[in-house]
Each structure stands twice: as structure tokens, then as C-alpha cells.
């Protein structure tokens, strides 16, 4: 992580502040500290999955896609009836069959949610691509309202319960306890991030995405189908958010129709923190946000957690505007 002197000072400052704030607590009760780290990592993994979609969409068409958080919630909502349709319910015995069914359900939901996002892009964003940039931002807000409205009409204004399918087994670990759920959440998020990385860097479509993000017109002149590439970006972003929604459901079991929006804002913060447009950056940013949230909730005032997260966002932008892993991009 090289950079200017200011950047280094800033990173050193962050490290110092974190050390001063957290080291005494960690030494005082290492088991509890580790527990918070586990919890924050699992939470951060979910933020990372949402942040990936944000960062990809922003990278390719420079849109802050306010509807993305609701796409995440929609994945959660769609999965519930599907799980029921496959005959799974709370208390179903854990078996290989159940895991296969869960994977199938996840795949179906990812495709449905991705398809919905492609339709949204086609109807609400593509016609406005050459319009003033704020117009498309407003339609994104409008789409967010529509999605929330649909989920509200569908499931009501209360918390919607997700069947608690995973076993509650816990292993002791250096004074903390590691749940099977934690492992599943972290591992599945990790697998998805790695797959996405392979896709972006190793396939032709991924190459087209990177080219389009860099210079849309030049990419078009090279024979890349811009519309299809952007649609694919929206599809993948939504599919990852849908997977995040299901993982969230399996882990937390409750969400309300409008809670995805604020989760989306946090995920966006994560994307900016890691360097907007940067895949690894978004994953790292999500992890960081999850950890900050866990530490602040457990050690300090929970009411101020959001304040710290957004304050970090502002500080990062002031001192290292390209994010932790982003490159310095000159203004177009």
C-alpha cells in the first residue's frame, strides 16, 4: 500500500487510533475480543456481498444505485417461498440433501434477482444514460421506492422471518465460540468474491466490463456490445446481493421490507472505503465496516456506531479519496 506521505500518515494514524482504542480491551478479555472479531467478520462478509454490486455498477456507469440495497432485501424475500416449495422448514434435519436444496434455491434466487435488476436497468436506467446524470439518480431512488412498495404489499410492514435452517452448533476457540453459521457465512462470501475475481479477470465478458468501465466509447469502438456488458454487470451485482440476502436470512433470520436501504448505504460506504470500482477493495471495505460496527456496538455506544462509520467515510475521502485500494483516477 504505497502512496503519498499524507496517505501513509493517514494509514498510520488509523492504525494508531485503532490500537489505542482496541488493544487494552483485547488484552483485558481476549476471548470476548475474538468473539467480536468473529461476529464482525461474518457481518462484514454480508456487507461485502452488497458492496460488490455497488462498486461494479458505479465503476461501469458512475451511478450510485440506491435501489441496490432493496435488491438485497428482495433476494431474501424471494427465497422464503422457494425454500417452502422445496419442502424445507424450520427444524428440518440437517443433511446433504438440505444443503443441496439450499444451494439450488440460492442459484434460482440469484438468477431471478439478477433478471429483475436487468429489467430495471433496461426500463429505468438505460433510456437516461445520455440524460443529465441526476435524472438517473432520481429514477434509482424511484425504483428503490417501487421495490420497497412491492415487498411491503407482499409481506407487510413487520419483520419477516427467514426459516432458521442451519444448526446452532458451536466450537470453542481460544475462549470464544465459533458457530457453524459463522463459518458458512464467511466461507460462502469468500467463495463468491473469489469466483467474481476469476470472472472479471479471466473471462471475455469480464474483460469487456473492465474496458467499458475504463472508457465506454473506446470500448464501443473496439466492438464491445456496451448494452449487453452493462446489463451483465447489473445481473452479477444483483445476483451477489441476492446471495447476500439469503446468507443474511440464514444468519440473522429477520428483516423488514425497508431495512435493505440503510444496509445499502453502509455497503456503499464500504465500497468507497475500499476504493470505488475496485472488487477486492469492496470486499475489504465490507469486512472493515462489519468489524467497526461490531467493535462499536460491543465496546462503545451502539447509538453512535453509524456516526463512526460515516465519519470514517468522510475522513477516508478527505485524506485518501481513491479509497484504500483504489487508484488515483483523474477527473473525466
Amino acid at each position, binding site marked *: 500500500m504505497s502512496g503519498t506521505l499524507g496517505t501513509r500518515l493517514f494509514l498510520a494514524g488509523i492504525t494508531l487510533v485503532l490500537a489505542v482504542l482496541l488493544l487494552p480491551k483485547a488484552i483485558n478479555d481476549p476471548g470476548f475480543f475474538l468473539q467480536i472479531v468473529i461476529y464482525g467478520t461474518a457481518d462484514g462478509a454480508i456487507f461485502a456481498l452488497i458492496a460488490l454490486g455497488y462498486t461494479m455498477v458505479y465503476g461501469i456507469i458512475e451511478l450510485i444505485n440506491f435501489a441496490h440495497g432493496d435488491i438485497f432485501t428482495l433476494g431474501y424475500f424471494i427465497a422464503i417461498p422457494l425454500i417452502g416449495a422445496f419442502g424445507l422448514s424450520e427444524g428440518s434435519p440437517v443433511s446433504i440433501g438440505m444443503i443441496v436444496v439450499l444451494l439450488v434455491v440460492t442459484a434460482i434466487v440469484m438468477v431471478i434477482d439478477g433478471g429483475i435488476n436487468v429489467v430495471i436497468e433496461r426500463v429505468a436506467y438505460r433510456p437516461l444514460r445520455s440524460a*443529465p446524470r441526476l435524472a438517473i439518480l*432520481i429514477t434509482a*431512488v*424511484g*425504483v428503490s*421506492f417501487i421495490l420497497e*412498495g412491492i415487498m411491503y404489499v407482499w409481506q407487510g410492514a413487520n419483520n419477516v422471518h427467514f426459516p432458521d435452517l442451519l444448526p446452532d452448533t458451536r466450537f470453542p476457540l481460544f475462549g470464544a465460540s465459533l458457530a457453524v453459521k459463522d463459518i458458512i457465512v464467511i466461507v460462502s462470501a469468500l467463495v463468491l468474491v473469489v469466483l467474481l475475481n476469476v470472472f472479471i479477470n479471466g473471462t471475455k465478458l469480464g474483460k469487456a466490463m473492465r474496458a467499458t468501465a475504463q472508457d465506454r466509447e473506446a470500448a464501443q469502438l473496439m466492438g464491445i456490445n456496451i448494452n449487453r456488458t452493462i446489463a451483465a454487470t447489473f445481473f452479477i451485482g444483483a445476483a451477489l446481493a441476492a446471495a447476500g440476502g439469503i446468507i443474511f436470512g440464514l444468519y440473522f433470520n429477520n428483516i423488514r421490507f425497508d431495512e435493505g436501504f440503510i444496509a445499502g448505504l453502509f455497503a456503499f460506504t464500504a465500497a468507497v472505503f475500499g476504493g470505488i470500482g475496485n472488487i477486492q477493495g469492496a470486499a475489504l471495505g465490507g469486512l472493515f465496516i462489519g468489524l467497526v460496527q461490531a467493535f462499536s456496538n460491543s465496546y462503545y*455506544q451502539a447509538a*453512535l456506531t453509524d456516526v463512526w462509520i460515516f465519519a470514517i467515510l468522510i475522513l477516508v475521502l478527505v485524506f485518501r479519496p481513491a479509497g484504500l485500494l483504489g487508484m488515483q483516477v483523474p477527473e473525466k
Partner: protein
Amino acid sequence: MSRPLPRSDAPMRWAMGTFKDRNRTIYTLLIIGVLLWPSIADVTTGGSGNHLVSTAADAGVYVLLAIGLNVVVGFAGLLDLGYAAFFAIGAYTVGLFASGQLSGSPLQHEFHVPFWVLILAAMFIAAAFGAILGAPTLRLRGDYLAIVTLGFGEIVPRVFRFLGAGSPIGNWTGGVNGISAIDPPKLPGFISGPWFGSPIQFVAPFDFSDSNWAPMDFYWLIVLLVAICIVLATNLYNSRLGRAWMAVREDEVAAAASGINTVAIKLLAFSIGASFAGLAGCYYGAKLSLVSSENFEFIVSVSILIMVVLGGMGNIPGVIVGALTIYIVQFFVLTNLPDYAVALSNLVGLGFLNQSGPGWVGLHDEVQRLNYIVFGLILVVVMLLRPQGLFPSRIREQELEKGTAEEAVFDVREATD
């Protein structure tokens, strides 16, 4: 009426001229509407129009906010996603310094600063916060400013909510409950009369919250404030500073090369925009006599932005129309839509729809559930049909037409390969 208009009849000629100039038409209609509104409200409700007048005064707050955000977004082209934060700062200024709130704080002393002083103070404080936030971030790329303001907009209401009873540094802001019993504006003496819905009399001291003339005086106060702000914003737009803002908006590099100090200019736009929100917040707190952190959430910032973009960025009359339209949709149409639906179904003989049954909670509640979808659809459809807004400024309109023409050429090239 084929008689030609006499040339000396200036008001008539002005009125005829309005039909050629869209903005003048809007202003004329607005002035007529504002003057007639109290009478219209009284007639349509059979003498109890106070509620409608009060609602119109609340709508005026959003008009103020939209005019202010238009300076930032429309004139200078900076995207502010946390504008409600400055609104909150203005409202909490009047809340803290014109109520008994601070007697419970570690200061143990309450302030009752007159409203008229607080208006200026709120504008100044909001502008100062705008400068503090803008100074380090305005050097960055345009989008980063949007993100920073988004973060700031999220932080401010949360901090106000946190600094209530039980916070480590004492109860300053009343926390979740907010601040209530805020002093109304007062004047040493004023003439009340039919314009305030009371007999002509000299009242000293004049208290704005007196129920003899309560919503009417607030209504005329916001009309006055909005009028002042329109004049201010229009003059800014036509000034050297306004032209500099436009230059920065269109091409920052070229503007800088022409000798414009772009950072200073943007900072001014940001601060001046914030001061308008401070003013609106101050009036809002004094009229409602209550400020609470939940009135300044992200959705408020987004709503104001929608008003500006939907009305037509950069064009003050357009922005006012946008603000009124969105306000009417949000607080009138959407809240009354279920009742309209019920009335309609009764009218056409589908009254059975109002019964609730399995999977159906009755037409009223079913329609109410659709509020989010209806509002979202309105935003998407209006933006798709008029991406430049309802009444964009002439200059922007021409720029946009030119822009789309260039895109069209590009599309042809795409189609041929």
C-alpha cells in the same frame, strides 16, 4: 374581446407578455395562487381553512429548501445528498436558543433569543458548517462531494438524537423526543386585520402563535421569506458569481483557466445553499414549536433533491413548481388516495370492495399499501418522460439538446457496425 389593448396599459401588457415567457407565467400564477389561497381554503372547507393555510406554510418551507439546494445543485452543479443536515442545524439552532431546553443541559441556563436574531444566526451557523464540510472536500472529484455530504447528512441527525438524556456529556438536544415548546416569533407591535383573519387592531406585543391569527401570520411570514429568497437567488444567478458558477458547472478546467478560483466559488455555492436551509430550519422549528431528529433523515434530503431535479435544475420558478408538486403528491395525494379510491368505488357501485375479507383488507388499506409504489412510479415515469425536469432553464435546455444530438450521431455509428 377584439378591442386592441391600449399601449399605455402597462399591467395589462405585462400580463399579456407573460404568456410568451414561461417563467413569467409561472411567477404570475404563483402570485395569484398565494394571494388567493387563504380565501380558497376558507371557501372550499366552509370557513375552517386554517389547516390548509398551515399546510401551505409547511409547503413553503420545502420551497425555501428547494431554492437553496438549487443554488448548490442547479447553479454550481455540485451534488449534495445531505442537504437535510443543514436544515436540521437551522432547526436545532432555534430549538436550543429559543426554548427552555438548555436549562437541563450542563449549562443550566436557558436562552430565549428573539426569532429574528436567530434567523440570521441559523443562516450563519449553517453556512459555517457548509464551509467546514466543503473546504476539505470541494477539491476532490465531483462525486466524492456527493458521498461526503451523504455521510454528513447521516451523521447530523444521529448526533442530535444521541446528545439527549444519558449521553456522556449531558442532555443537550432532548434525544429521541427532540425539543418542544420552542418560542414563537414575536414582534413588539403589529397591526392585525383581515389579512390575518381578525378585525383590524393594533396588537402589542404581537405573538405569532396567538390562535386569533395563528396559521395566517405564519403563512404570510413564509411568503415573505420565500419572496426574499427568490430575489436573492435570482440576483445571485445574474451576478458575476452566478456566471462563475455556471462556468464551473459546465467545464471546471476551462473555468479555472479563465481565472476563476473554482474552489472558492464552489465553497461559496455550498455555504450559501446551506444558509438557505438554515433559514428554512429556523422557521420550521419556530412554526412547529418542535424539532425532532427524525424530521431530517436521508429521505428528506432525497425529497428536496427530487424537487430540484424534477422541477428543472437551475431554473428558480421551475424548482418552485417542482417543490410544490412533490409536496402535494407526498402530503396530499398519497395520504388521501385511499379515501379517493373508496369514494370512487362507492360512486360506481363497487362498494363491496370496501369490505375486508381473506387476503383483502378492504380497498382503503389496500390502496394505502400502494403508496410507495405510486410515488416510485411517479419519479421514474416523470424522469423518463422529462429527464431535464418539468421547466429547465433555457440555457440548460439548449445545452441538453446539443448533447443529445451528439449522442444521436454516435448511435448511428453504432448501428452501422
